């Protein structure tokens, strides 16, 4: 089964939640994608969070465009916004994985989102297309 869906939503955490839950419901009902539905929902949420929190700084007026396309072999997710865009240092931020027993110390409180995305998706690309910031990520579904 092939499909393409698009959402135009406010670039806010609530908008992110609405799309994430909708896509999870959709993917969960398509056999080759269902076992990946939760992880894909998480990766998409992390990108949308970055848009809402960093690119739009929780500005209620910003719009986010989300497109998910499945060609039977791979799913491609594209997320576009017109905010300030991701900061380079956030993209390349190194994720400090905790060590066993590393309690009560200075665990990093942020920076996990990009690590999570990189662990779930096969490929992630950040681009500036005209006035828009674009994140495109793909995952092959076997």
């Amino acid at each position: 089964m092939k499909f393409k869906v698009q959402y135009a939503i406010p670039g806010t955490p609530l908008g992110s939640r609405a799309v994430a839950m909708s896509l999870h419901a959709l993917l969960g009902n398509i056999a080759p994608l269902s076992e990946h539905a939760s992880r894909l929902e998480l990766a998409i949420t992390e990108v949308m969070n970055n848009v809402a929190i960093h690119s739009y700084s929780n500005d209620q007026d910003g719009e986010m465009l989300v497109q998910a396309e499945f060609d039977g072999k791979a799913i491609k997710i594209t997320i576009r916004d017109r905010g300030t865009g991701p900061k380079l240092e956030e993209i390349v931020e190194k994720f400090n994985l905790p060590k066993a027993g590393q309690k009560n110390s200075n665990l990093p409180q942020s920076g996990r989102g990009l690590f999570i995305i990189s662990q779930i998706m096969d490929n992630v690309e950040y681009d500036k297309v005209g006035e828009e910031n674009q994140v495109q990520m793909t995952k092959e579904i076997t």
Partner: protein
Amino acid sequence: MQCNQEKQEHCVVLRIEENRLDAVVSQDLKECLLTMIKNGDTDIGIDMSPVDFVDSTGLGVLVSVLNSLGQNGSLFFWGVSSSVKSMFELTQLYKVFEIYETEEDALAKFK
């Protein structure tokens, strides 16, 4: 978000009444937990039973609280769903979080 707290003999239990710990509720959760610490409740058990989705903002709150407690308290969980466990494993935070199967197991640590 509702912050339902129960005082126990040696700790406070926070019962999460949300299915999702995401960017929508993370700030409320953080304020709730930091208020508990400010009020002297430094051993905090969280019943995660209803939660089936946690993103990096939710995790960030839990890490932030763990850091705030330092050596002066504990933060522990039970009722962790398979999808949330999967998130803890993906980020390797299972190495630093105290996770129990049941509430009884968790509260037994104070006996």
